[in-house]
């Protein structure tokens, strides 16, 4: 029962701003979707940025405490049925990413449907920007997943949300500077990034590194 209530609450927290945003935002550039495809343009109202941030809070809470629940609860007899820890890690990672990315895509569909309902013209997303935004989410969710192997899930959750909020509140990202990469959550608003190709490489490399660190940590963990 509590699980259902939590899921409904998350859905409301995530979708209400999506629908509200879809209703009020008139768009700045022709043929631009914004939101989780292009993100917001630099000129957007700061209040919109904050509104835009709430669904991220909800997305990060999808399957909250996933790793701990899976390793210390009903998943233990599943674990020993695999041959290697790498397989278990891969299964856990894939499951969590699919659920969070699935929720993200669901939110995007709701946004587009809401735009149609409110009478706005709906353009097909710019695929290069959409993918960059999705890869950034993947990196963010991967950080959360691996972070939970080292620290308390709540600490990781709060830390990452603060990091994302501070990062996206600081515009003017120079994709070719260290500071620009350190503020990678800016790429959630893909329109801010000038050198898409370089950013793709950096994000995917970071993602691979995070997965390797997680896999190494998982192979040494005691499943108590």
């Amino acid at each position, binding site marked *: 029962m509590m699980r259902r209530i939590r899921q409904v609450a998350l859905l409301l927290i995530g979708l209400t701003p999506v629908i509200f945003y879809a209703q009020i935002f008139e768009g700045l550039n022709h043929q631009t979707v914004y939101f989780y495809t292009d993100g917001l343009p630099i000129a957007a109202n700061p209040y919109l940025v904050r509104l835009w941030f709430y669904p991220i809070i909800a997305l990060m809470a999808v399957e909250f405490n996933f790793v701990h629940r899976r390793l210390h*609860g*009903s*998943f*233990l*007899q*599943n*674990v*020993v*049925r*695999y*041959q*290697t*820890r790498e397989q278990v890690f891969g299964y856990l990672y894939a499951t969590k990413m699919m659920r969070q990315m699935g929720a993200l895509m669901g939110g995007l569909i709701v946004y587009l449907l809401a735009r149609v309902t409110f009478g706005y013209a709906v353009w097909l997303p710019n695929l290069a920007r959409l993918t960059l935004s999705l890869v950034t989410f993947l990196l963010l969710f991967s950080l959360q997943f691996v972070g939970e192997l080292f620290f308390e899930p709540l600490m990781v959750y709060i830390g990452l949300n603060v990091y994302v909020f501070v990062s996206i509140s600081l515009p003017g990202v120079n994709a070719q500077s260290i500071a620009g990469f350190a503020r990678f959550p800016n790429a959630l608003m893909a329109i801010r990034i000038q050198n898409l190709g370089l950013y793709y490489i950096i994000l995917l490399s970071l993602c691979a590194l995070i997965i390797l660190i997680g896999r190494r940590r998982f*192979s*040494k*963990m*005691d*499943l*108590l």
Partner: protein
Amino acid sequence: MIELTDVTKSLNGHYVLDHISQSFMDGQVYGLRGKNGAGKTMLLRAIAGLINIDSGQIVIDGRKLHDGMDFPPSLGILIENNNLMPEYTARKNLQLLAKIKKVASDADIDATITRVGLDPNDKRTVKQFSLGMRQRLAIAQAIFERPELILLDEPTNAIDSDGVQQVRTILLEEKKRGATIIIASHTAEDLVVLTDEIYNMAEGRIYEQTDAAK
């Protein structure tokens, strides 16, 4: 055959497994007895590959654990909690587990659920089960794939005396099949009924062997 050589594990500066060397032969039922914190469950977890030991080695049928093999290849396990999905039926729970190794059929699942005294056609979900029924299902999940090694922690928890007898029958059948079974319990009575040999544990060490028949 399982061979433990000088196995140690410490947590927070305290030995939970203290230089344990022990062999477990195929087709035997072993008991581990001791108070809470004696190291019984930790020993089962070490053999299951769930914890990384600090030193020593665990060899299962000639293959060293954590050296190209993270978990024993044919293992059934019941540790501490009834680790089952509460929102599914008994059959669905086992079907989900069966998808990983793909060695048990639906017929095997139904037969095992019946063996432990439950109804495979029961539409109730696990959260509607009594504690005893959950424990029976937990035993079913440990044996339905006919594993060569079965590790059971307090398997008779919440099971009545008739149920204990039923567990005994099941374990004898599994032993006859050639499975090695290790049971941890803090009560001597269950182990005397269920096992061939009992090892007493305290402070992470095995310090005494008792023949269960005596």
